[in-house]
């Protein structure tokens, strides 16, 4: 199920003209989806079917290297606690809408804060891993 979600995410951003890569190795783990914006920034997305806390715990490492970080979950209600968890970290929330398809599949519920504390060496490492992965896909 998560694989299908990852596929839908990559299709969404590819249709918008962004270069994407999946399971990008980073710091002894991997980031589910990374895409490059037209401005050359890297955006990291952690996809989960449930358990937003676990998703946030994994996604947060993306803050070391990516310009923006998102968690993507199937659509559900967002409690105040949940919203606060995302906002305090600066991580965005994307809902995957089960009913629609194509370019309107994903809904940006909370915008990710632009990450100004990116670690230079981490960004280089992510960029390198992203380019290698994107080449192979």
């Amino acid at each position, binding site marked *: 199920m998560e694989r299908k979600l990852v596929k839908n995410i990559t299709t969404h951003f590819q249709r918008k003209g962004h270069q994407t890569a999946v399971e990008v*190795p*980073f*710091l*002894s*783990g991997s980031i589910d989806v990374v895409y490059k914006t037209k401005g050359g920034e890297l955006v990291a997305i952690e996809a989960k079917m449930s358990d937003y806390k676990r998703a946030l715990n994994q996604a*947060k*490492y993306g*803050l*070391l290297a990516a310009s923006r970080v998102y968690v993507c979950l199937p659509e559900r209600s967002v409690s105040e606690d949940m919203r606060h968890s995302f906002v305090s970290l600066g991580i965005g929330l994307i809902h995957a809408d089960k009913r629609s398809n194509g370019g309107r599949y994903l809904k940006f519920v909370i915008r990710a804060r632009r990450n100004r*504390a990116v*670690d*230079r*060496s*981490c960004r280089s*490492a992510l960029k390198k891993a992203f380019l290698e992965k994107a080449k192979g896909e």
Partner: protein
Amino acid sequence: MQNEIPKHIIRYGAHPEKPFFETPFDALYDGVLLNANTVAYSTRGIAEFLTQRLNKPFCIDPLTHAFGHSPIHIAKNTGEGELEVRAAFKSLAQHYGQPVISQLGRRGLRPDDFHQGGRLLEQFCEQVVHFQKNIISAQLAEEGDDKYIPAQRQSPCLVIAPYFYMTSSTFHFWLDLNKSLIDASVPLESILPVFGYILISKDAFFDDDLRGELLVSCKGTEARGFMLWIESFSEHGATKSELNKYRQFVSNLSQGGRKVISLYGGYFSIMLQKYGLHGVTHGPGYGEEREVTPVGGGLPKPKFYFPALHERLPFREVLFAIRTKAKWSSASDYYGNVCDCVWCKQTIGEDMSNFMKYGESKSGVRKDGISFEYQTTQAKILNTAHYLLNKDKEFKFVAANEVQLLKEDLQDSMRKHRGNFELERLGHLANWLGGLS
């Protein structure tokens, strides 16, 4: 002159670890512990390593418990659906004789096996003690090298009585036999101290009744000391009550001058030297807790030792804490707040981006298809060196300071890193404080 019994001991796990025992790391520990199967199988290499490359007291874990488990734990798959006992254990079994040989590969030993009449138990103890005491010197004599090496360096600093693993369900089967093995071993040796060896499951150890019986049994022997391995006991995951019980047991057992050595210990065990614990053993970069099986082997996971928390943590967690939470961006921030050991200064220099070297890893896939990450060789060297330097610092810090200061240091660490790490990474410091009270 007898070798002093070391306090900071490193367990020799595998031959690729040799560089971490030699210069410059040899200044960072006091003694070496080797597994008997490794010594039995690689005697020549080990003898040369111990006597010519190191100049450290050593002792040999006789690993008799390995013959008390199902043979699958010491066997390998031949590929034809059959199991064959691994060569190192076959070699060790030859040294130990009966009753090990007759059951080797068939089943694990039982207490009854030692009560078949005659002097079977005594002979078994003789073989086990003889192996530890003489295997290295015998190898050197065979090569004609014994003349060039002082006798003291050819001999272990202590010998260990045979022992078997006790769980909650097998405790009463093995307790008396383990005591008998110690009682039979002590008279065998008039020069080297004879130690007992407590290998016990965590739930058995923390059962108050069983622990009480164990203490009475151990104190009823003439052993000069005890090696202690509480299976899978994590000092980082332990409750305050468990840490208190551990401290009290060690304190009690060490009365009367008995030397108690923790075989898989971390910083809490090092602090217990203030409460009677004589020494602590760990591996080069790992080994502060262990399960009984597998017997030997296992792949250490890639982690960075964070000094203030006295714990090996996933590298990315450390990096996140340092860079994103604490926002320490410069090398001087790192030296002032994380670690200023010689190794970190050499690795990082003035460029904080060099810290990434500690986290370099590669991907692999196991035979069962599960992917895993492992450190690059270079990262492993960096992390191990950093770990050993910090371990040495911990021993020196504890030796130089009173308990009150050790407690204040733990409190300082909690305060300082409260905002940098999740509570689950700090909780053990509070429990350690409670465990010392």
